[in-house]
């Protein structure tokens, strides 16, 4: 199979296992492309892509922009701050105005869950969700899956623990769907206050002890505590959270196996992960960033065939 079953990338939930496998195998070829002396291919030279970022982002925005440029697409960048959104323009109006300039694809990050899906129903362009509130962040999950597969050879039967602020994390939800569809087992680990009420209904294991999760897993994906999404105190103090759920070299060494440590970024060093661990040989954090460009190139390339 060489074609995706969907026209948009709104969430991993809508993808089939074959879609995920196709994206990952295509990304492998793009990883070779971005390591060439000349890192550009002309595939998307007749495509225009708008990056609409209604929420802050460093990695995702740069990664998408680089992926688009490496594919020779024309790129429009839009950030909510400094735009007409602050003058009261609605999402549809903003998007339609940008589309009137003949844009083929829209990459959007938005603080509201479902924003990408909403946009895909209202406008005639291929939509790629670059994170919608606490809902999904599909390209992050795909690059995480790609990075695990690259390190461990396969996802089949691998055990992945996702640790930290699960309830506010779109990365966690997309990762659960992506890993399960690729044959991996998932455990969610975090304090009860940061765990969704019916987490088990996703078909995952749930733990409230980091040590237990580390003992179980092959890969630990450490999430950031998203204080900007917290409207009340979910735990007594950062110090206490860090003592309970922060990954230190001591906790990592207490497991007598080599684990793979991941983090979607941005890292709060000393909170969910110590610098010593983040910069250690166990960590593949910077590989994730490199792979992010290759995976996004694959997604753009495969979706552009239908744009």
């Amino acid at each position, binding site marked *: 199979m*060489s074609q995706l079953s969907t026209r948009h990338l709104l969430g991993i939930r809508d993808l089939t296992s074959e879609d995920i496998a*196709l994206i990952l*195998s*295509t990304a492998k*070829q793009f990883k*070779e492309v971005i390591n060439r002396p000349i890192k*550009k*291919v002309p595939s998307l030279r007749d495509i225009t892509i708008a990056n609409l970022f209604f929420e802050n982002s460093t990695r995702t925005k740069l990664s998408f922009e680089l992926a688009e440029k490496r594919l020779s697409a024309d790129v429009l960048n839009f950030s909510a701050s400094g735009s007409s959104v602050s003058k009261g323009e609605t999402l549809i109006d903003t998007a339609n105005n940008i589309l009137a300039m003949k844009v083929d694809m829209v990459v959007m990050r938005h603080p509201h869950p479902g924003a990408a899906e909403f946009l895909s129903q209202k406008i005639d362009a291929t939509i790629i969700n670059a994170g919608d509130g606490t809902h999904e962040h599909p390209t992050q999950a795909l690059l995480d899956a790609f990075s695990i597969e690259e390190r461990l050879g396969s996802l089949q039967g691998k055990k992945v623990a996702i640790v930290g602020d699960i309830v506010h994390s779109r990365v966690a939800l997309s990762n659960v769907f992506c890993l399960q569809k690729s044959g991996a087992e998932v455990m969610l680990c975090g304090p009860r206050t940061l765990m969704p009420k019916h987490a088990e209904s996703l078909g995952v294991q749930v733990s409230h002890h980091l040590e237990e999760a580390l003992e179980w897993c092959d890969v630990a994906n450490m999430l950031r505590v998203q204080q900007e999404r917290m409207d009340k105190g979910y735990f007594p103090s950062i110090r206490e959270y860090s003592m309970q759920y922060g990954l230190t070299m001591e906790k990592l060494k207490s497991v007598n196996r080599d684990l793979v440590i991941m983090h979607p970024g941005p890292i709060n060093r000393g909170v969910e992960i110590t610098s010593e661990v983040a910069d250690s040989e166990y960590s593949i954090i910077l590989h994730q960033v490199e792979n992010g460009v290759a995976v996004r190139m694959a997604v753009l*390339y495969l979706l552009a065939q239908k744009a």
Partner: protein
Amino acid sequence: MQKKVILNQTLINIILERLCHQLIEQHGNFADTVLIGLQPRGAALAYRLEKMLREKGVNNIQMGLLDITFFRDDFRRRETPLHPNQTKIDFLVEDKRVIFIDDVLYSGRSVRAALDAIHSFGRPRSIELLVLIDRRFSRKLPIQPSFCGHTVDAIDSERVLVEWKENNQTDQISIIPYEST
């Protein structure tokens, strides 16, 4: 129409031997020459020629595989998209004499894409094209082979099928109708 065999193992061997000798005649000890197999179907021929050249005492051959999927001019125009293959070039082609290797030369579009793609690895001194089968009268672009194994006159509804003993029982080249592929 049934499958019609046009070249059998013996004839293919004679042709490959001749191509090797032509390459050695033109490129000597291959000091500045690199072989680039065009994915997917040029790879098997490139491996075979490399092996035969080594057996003839040419030892320092550099060989790579180039996938041209991302450089094609029919992206978004085809019914079914193509899946990319591996590119494997561990050296720069800057100032090298490059020989593209493919099994069948048909419209010339793949070679055009390869001419674009190879520049990601530097600026070659020259580029030549070696093909096993040249389907003359089918060209859509002004591209001709430098080394040619065999010329075939086939109509558009026919396909030239190259099979190698590495995947098949024997080396064989045949003409088959498109529907049966």
